[in-house]
């Protein structure tokens, strides 16, 4: 069981470039999430999905788009990267949405925008 797999693990972008962060889970979970983590800030929710074909905005959605391609995959796209988007990005999944559900996290993508 791989759990939650994120690719790539590291990425350096130039300002204005675009890229897609990939996330896949093999636990048949319905809900998936994208978070960013900055030093001293904890994790902040960017977007999430409660099922295939549905997405919703989180706390910090500006500058990001997401796609729930199927039940397994949830991608995060930066259309025009900015230095403020330098961060560590975590994908997570859970069987259902709720503060009382157990979520499983990927290993993170460390993104630097120069």
């Amino acid at each position, binding site marked *: 069981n791989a759990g*939650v797999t994120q690719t790539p693990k590291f990425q350096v972008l130039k300002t204005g470039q675009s890229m897609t962060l990939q996330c896949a889970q093999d636990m048949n979970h319905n*809900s998936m*999430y994208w*978070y960013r983590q900055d030093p*001293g*800030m*904890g*994790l*902040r*929710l960017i977007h*999430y999905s409660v099922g295939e074909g549905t997405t*919703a905005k*989180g706390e910090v959605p500006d500058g990001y788009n997401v796609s729930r391609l199927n039940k397994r995959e949830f991608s995060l796209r930066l259309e025009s990267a900015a230095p403020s988007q330098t961060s560590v990005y*975590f994908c*997570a999944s*859970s069987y*259902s*949405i*709720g*503060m*009382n*559900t*157990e*979520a*499983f*996290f*990927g*290993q*993170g993508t460390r993104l630097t925008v120069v």
Partner: protein
Amino acid sequence: LAKTTQPISMDSYEGQEVNITCSHNNIATNDYITWYQQFPSQGPRFIIQGYKTKVTNEVASLFIPADRKSSTLSLPRVSLSDTAVYYCLVGGSGYALNFGKGTSLLVTP
């Protein structure tokens, strides 16, 4: 969502018991209390969850008083490998996980 307050940081020596308290005065009837642990350069992982009284597993214990307005995560005999950030989450179904800044625990020899 219930607002949670926990210490920003704590220090401990190896072998000591560490207690991290989380305040959540406006907890709702259906809310559960969940703790996650995050090691450096890794994603958070679930460690324990409870609704009331005491819950214990192989990693930690969670103490919840009758009024449920606070909870205490107890880590017995910590080791250097317990150095991590610990997050207290309070809520029920229907909401995406909302992490605060957590408590950064540093264990030293």
